[in-house]
């Protein structure tokens, strides 16, 4: 049964009318009163940037914080593919209802119907808004917007700006922010990291930040706090996330009372450039579109020494085509990723590390000609050559799956409010509308939906219907939070251990990747929990953080982040262990059909698992929000 703390606050009534009804019933803040409220926005990616700009336009005082030197660099910028919108400009049968349905199904029936429907509804407003702001989306010769299709859908509904859609959307949101900075309605704090959340009278009232340049700890008070801090993929050490992407803001809010939902739901993308050495710092995604023309294979025998182009047809295993004859190389992300892992586990992996498979364009070049393939993928081939130093027109690409997106995150209700009143969570940082697996071109859509079109309504309702006392940063709660941060710093500096922060991060990443990655099982998850606990103990005895707190000290920044990743990693393993089913990105080897397909358990697990922190010494408590499906029928995904 749904835990009493997890009231989703989904409005009653017909699915199609819920959002309109809710907007009408939400209380408004009088224009003259908006200027009396201050809102903190942490993170300036698509969710934070769009929220900050929009709230400032409405008249609120916004204090925005970002970890980079300018809000224009948030990692939303790296999204390549596109953004979905249910415009049906192609007249190919798309509709709000179809986008809603595809998203629910793609998420393997582990998301909230009402949220997903609202997401599909506002998707059209997002496209309009971004075009109005000057985003140069791709166009047809006639001047109309162009669309392309993406995995998991049968219609063309994806809007794109070359391979840089995320960048263009982010710069749109950023330009809106800059406009409001100029008008004095946004106060921008860059090179700042949120170190703690301040809760007073059970309301989120402020944050403690670190000025990353001077090291100074700062207190900021507000009437509400918005966390827009992205996902936690870097718990794996290697991921496609940016170097500074981390879980600290979310995790410390979790420790102050925000529940963490479905942390084990992570997305592993099948087509990334493989790891090439121990020194590797990050992984780079290659667009999924490559699988439209590339054939995935490994050699049939182990320890193959021939160059790939010299291996004859009969010695190659095109395993996706063999296992999934109807979908072949276009099998969905989770399925393709897992199959690549199995081949490498069998010792058939290629390249110096043996953790890669081939993606071969030989046959499509022969069929369509070099210029056609170059026209479609030229920029991707160039990028590959720049990084790997091999020419994919001549030698097959090497690819391997990598952690890419986290569907889990802080639990929020229909208003995007966490279990702490006043703390709202937007974008990838919340447990979101993607269920157990996110479809392509949906992340940008969700971030902008939350920031532009949802939070302006739900936040005004919160501010208008709650009594929020006057408060200054002299309040004891600020002092306590700041002291907590300072004590942790002192402790880190005091250890003077022998291992670097990265050593621990890599060790954690190894557990996460091996046991909490693409395929999980009970024994492995238990091993990970024990191992990570031990690693956490060692970290707090033997980590070496040089320098002082009063300077630009990157090792200190990293140490705090890794300390939180160690705790999150354990919770992810626990969450995966408790979820005795396979769904979306969560594949438990015990729960599969004889031919390796995921087996969902709707009887026992058609719910959101939201974890409550109960202190360093006690086990976290698992709460449940039951998911009710009234408009779609639960079905099994099949790709054979």
């Amino acid at each position, binding site marked *: 049964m749904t835990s009493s703390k997890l009231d989703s606050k989904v409005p009653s009534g017909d699915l199609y009318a819920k959002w309109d009804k809710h907007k009408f019933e939400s209380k408004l803040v009088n224009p003259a009163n908006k200027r009396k409220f201050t809102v903190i926005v942490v993170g300036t990616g698509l969710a934070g940037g769009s929220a900050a700009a929009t709230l400032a336009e409405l008249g609120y005082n916004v204090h925005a914080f970002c970890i*980079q030197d300018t809000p224009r*660099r948030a990692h939303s910028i*790296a999204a390549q593919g596109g953004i979905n919108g249910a415009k049906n400009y192609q007249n190919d049968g798309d509709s709000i209802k179809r986008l809603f349905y595809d998203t629910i199904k793609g998420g393997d029936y582990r998301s909230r119907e009402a949220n997903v429907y609202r997401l599909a509804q506002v998707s059209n407003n997002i496209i309009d808004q971004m075009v109005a702001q000057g985003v*140069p989306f*791709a166009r047809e010769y006639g001047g*109309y917007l162009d669309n392309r299709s993406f995995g998991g859908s049968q219609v063309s509904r994806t809007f794109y700006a070359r391979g840089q859609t995320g960048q263009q959307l982010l710069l749109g949101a950023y330009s809106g922010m800059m406009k409001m900075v*100029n008008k004095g309605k946004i106060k921008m704090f860059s090179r700042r990291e949120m170190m703690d959340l301040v809760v007073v009278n059970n309301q989120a009232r402020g944050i403690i930040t670190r000025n990353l340049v001077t090291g100074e700890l700062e207190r900021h008070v507000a009437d509400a706090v918005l966390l827009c801090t992205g996902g936690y993929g870097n718990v794996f050490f290697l991921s496609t996330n940016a170097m500074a992407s981390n879980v600290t803001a979310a995790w410390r809010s979790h420790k102050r009372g925000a529940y963490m939902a479905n942390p084990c739901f992570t997305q592993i993308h099948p087509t990334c450039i493989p790891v090439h*050495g121990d*020194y590797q710092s*990050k992984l780079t995604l290659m667009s999924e579109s490559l699988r439209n023309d590339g054939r995935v294979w490994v050699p049939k025998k182990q320890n193959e020494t021939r160059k790939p182009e010299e291996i004859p047809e009969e010695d190659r295993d095109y395993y996706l085509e063999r296992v999934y004859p109807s979908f072949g190389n276009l099998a969905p992300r989770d399925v393709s990723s897992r199959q690549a892992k199995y081949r490498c586990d069998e010792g058939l992996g290629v390249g110096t590390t043996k953790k890669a498979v081939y993606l071969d364009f030989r046959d499509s070049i022969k069929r369509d000609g070099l210029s056609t393939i170059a026209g479609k993928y030229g920029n991707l081939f160039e990028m590959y050559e720049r990084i790997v130093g091999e020419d994919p027109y001549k030698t097959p690409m090497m690819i391997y799956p990598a952690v890419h997106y986290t569907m889990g995150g802080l639990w929020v209700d229909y208003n995007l409010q966490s279990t702490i009143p006043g703390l709202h969570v937007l974008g990838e940082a919340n447990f979101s509308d993607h269920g157990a697996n996110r479809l392509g071109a949906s992340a940008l859509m969700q971030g902008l939906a939350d920031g532009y079109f949802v939070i302006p309504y739900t936040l005004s309702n919160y501010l208008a219907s709650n009594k929020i006392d006057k408060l200054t940063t002299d309040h004891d709660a600020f002092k306590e939070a700041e002291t907590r941060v300072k004590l942790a710093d002192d402790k880190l500096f005091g250890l003077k251990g022998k291992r670097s922060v990265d050593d621990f991060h890599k060790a954690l990443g190894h557990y996460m990747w091996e046991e909490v990655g693409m395929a999980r099982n009970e024994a492995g998850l238990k091993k990970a929990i024990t191992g990570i606990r031990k690693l956490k103990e060692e970290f707090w005895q033997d980590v070496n953080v040089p320098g002082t707190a009063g300077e630009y000290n990157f090792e200190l920044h990293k140490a705090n982040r890794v300390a939180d990743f160690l705790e999150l990693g354990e919770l992810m393993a626990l969450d995966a262990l408790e979820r005795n089913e396979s769904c979306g990105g969560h594949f438990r080897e015990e729960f599969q059909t004889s031919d390796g397909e995921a087996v969902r358990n709707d009887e026992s697990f058609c719910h959101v698992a939201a974890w409550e922190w109960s202190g360093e010494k006690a086990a976290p408590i698992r709460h449940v929000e039951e998911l009710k499906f009234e408009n779609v029928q639960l079905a099994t995904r099949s790709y054979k």
Partner: protein
Amino acid sequence: MSDATANMTIYLKVWRQASATAEGKFVDYKVDHVSPDMSFLEMFDVLNDQLVKKGESPIAFDHDCREGICGMCSMMINGKAHGGQKGTTTCQLHMRKFKSGDAIVVEPWRAKAFPLIKDLVVDRSAFDKIIQAGGFISAQTGNAPDANANLIPKTVADEAMDAAACIGCGACVASCPNGSAMLFMGAKISQLALLPQGQPEAPRRALNMVKSHDELLFGNCTNHAECEATCPKEIGLEHIARMNREYTKATFTYHEKARGGDGA
């Protein structure tokens, strides 16, 4: 793993400076076991790891996405912004472009408008200020007409996209003998001037941005074209030309009357 190939030795001369006011100097480092597959920044990671283990202060440098799109990385490598490989940011430059035994000089971006913070890290917030002066279209959320209401020819949209590809890294400023940000600013003015949505504010935008640029101590453009040569997104000089046209046009045609209030 592939450490067998990690057999290069690199001699680095790196600018170290504790803070904006401290005195800076070049410091020599020798980095062994460099793999040709490493990115330039991964080579710095290896060096920093060694420095931390020796108890020395690691070299501060800006970086984030490490896939050439966020614009955060910013190193002057052997006198070239981002190292001089065509269309490549520092994070995408790989060690296979160097030979074992090479000596490499690494400096921060140097420009009056980019004060130094530490070592190789500089303050590029002047770029935000230029954008604040007008690098936007005032389209309040919720106002927008249907996305297809304004038709934009493909060629125009493509050209706007060429300009919009700017990542705001500042290589153009760092490589310009005048420390000019005209390519950065021109790219934004040009992108928005090409699009119909950008027309209502076009004259005001050009005037305000150029004014802000000059006040922020960026120099003027004297057509060296070094910015175009080093721009990792290969943004062309034609965008500076379009900016100049927009600016000139605006000085003749645009006049904002100072009358208080909006009459509401």
